């Protein structure tokens, strides 16, 4: 366990000290600052627009962190053969995977927490300027939504770890991870659209396509489950059962991905 934490710690340092993180932070501040101006363009639902922009900015920042920094963190080790050095120590392949992932999660959490602080600051600012239009706003739901944005990023981080074990090429890892993100975001809409279309019998779907989509819905993470942005925008507290299931789904999915990654990595050869 200690070895795992040691690897997690240095992975965290490597992530946090990456120059890209600075760029992503600047970009996020820009989005948060922008929302102070943009909110004024709207008539009534200023609270909603502020939350929309803040949570979307946080989400995009998280995606940038995963696709550019985390992919790099994982690929660097293998590309530059640092992994040879680490594995020459008494650390198992499984400990390596979990240690790296823990470091990634820690890095993402700290980065997003800092960004969330800035986001809260702009929310307070806009709320002060247009307090009448924040009637529906709830700090609880806003924070919960931000937490689930983090969870979504954590799931994508596990996807990146898995693909890193399958290929040494960081570009392929990137492309595949982005594809999982795209499919994961759309799968719910597509599935329910087809289901309702089939029921209304105004959409012709072949049996094979149907089976493919059903299989995909079990393989790919349904990222819509972590999306509480609209609830936060209107201060609508979701049911605890729903929140619990989202949390559980995320946790289980991460564990499964890491177990598969551990298996693949244990059999991996390094040249």
């Amino acid at each position, binding site marked *: 366990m200690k070895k795992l934490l040691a690897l997690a710690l240095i992975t965290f340092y490597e992530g946090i000290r990456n120059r890209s993180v600075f760029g992503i932070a600047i970009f996020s501040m820009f989005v948060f600052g922008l929302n102070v101006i943009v909110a004024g363009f*709207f*008539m*009534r639902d200023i609270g*909603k627009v502020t939350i929309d922009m803040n949570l979307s900015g946080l989400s995009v920042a998280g995606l940038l962190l995963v696709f550019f920094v985390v992919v790099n963190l994982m690929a660097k080790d293998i590309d530059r053969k640092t992994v040879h050095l680490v594995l020459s120590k008494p650390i198992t392949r499984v400990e390596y995977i979990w240690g790296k992932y823990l470091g990634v999660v820690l890095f993402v959490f700290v980065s997003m927490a800092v960004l969330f602080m800035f986001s809260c600051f702009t929310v307070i600012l806009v709320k002060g300027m247009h307090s009448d239009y924040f009637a529906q706003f709830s700090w609880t739901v806003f924070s919960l939504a931000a937490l689930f944005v983090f969870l979504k990023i954590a799931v994508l981080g596990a996807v990146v770890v898995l693909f890193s074990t399958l290929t040494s090429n960081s570009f392929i890892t990137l492309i595949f991870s982005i594809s999982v993100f795209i499919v994961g*975001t*759309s799968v719910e*809409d597509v599935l329910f659209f087809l289901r309702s279309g089939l029921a209304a019998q105004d959409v012709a779907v072949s049996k094979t396509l149907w089976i493919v989509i059903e299989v995909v819905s079990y393989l790919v993470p349904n*990222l819509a489950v972590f999306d509480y*942005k609209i609830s936060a*925008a209107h201060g609508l507290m979701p049911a605890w059962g729903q929140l619990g299931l989202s949390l559980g789904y995320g946790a289980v999915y991460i564990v499964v991905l890491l177990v598969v990654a551990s298996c693949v990595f244990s059999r991996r050869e390094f040249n």
Partner: protein
Amino acid sequence: MRRILILLLVLLISLVSHALVTFEMWRMRGQVRSTTVAGYVLPSKFSSVLAFGYKGLLSDFLFLKSVTFFGERHLAKKILSDGDWQYLLTSLDVVTDLDPYFEDPYVFAEANLAWEGKVEEANRILEKGRKNRNWDWRIPYYIGFNYFYFLQDYEKGAEYVMEAASRPGSHPFLSTLGARLAYYGGKSKTAVLFLRQMILETTDPGLRTRLEKRLIALERAAELEAKIELFVKEQGRKPTSIEELITAGYVDSLPPDPYGGQWVILKNGRVFSTSKFTDSR
């Protein structure tokens, strides 16, 4: 030294030309936008998938787009063509599908669609708001208003206004308005029941008194209407005046109007009062 001077001269010339060209460009764009046909909005099904999890943000963006489009047309004093209206309607539809809790499009629909003659379409969009923004009294009020003001459907108008009155934070006058509309719409019984319910829920004593007074007036009017119906059934004709009910023996005496007016029978057989059921003259 000469090289630097030449470089600076070139820089100056390029900056000046940039300023001039940019000025011209913005002017041209203003012209282009005022003559452009309204854009195309992807239907909700596609928009929601293409939002990639940013539905709320996309709804904000699309709404802003429609508002600026509408505003620009107004600025240029242009009348909106059918195509323009179609764009606006689809846009508002998509915006409210992406985020059905978004208040601004509903307000916009009421202000700019209903008042421009597109009442049915406005109501259709407002229905979504009524269902989803179930804490918001304004939306059913808008729908009700549209029904009684534009469509002259008092019955339906009353229904919606009453719903609005039952939602939290509603303006107290809505309860009396609802009852009045119901009464105008020929639904005195409904008005009576509604008022009784409102009285039970009202904590404000001033409002309570006003509602109770209105209730008494309507109950008495309803009683008289029932007597008139009986008269018509038995006598085969409408009574000439309210007093005929007493002479014909249908009532012993006329119950007093709490607002102090005289009962009158309207042409359609409804009972009203010279007080118009209001304290102000």
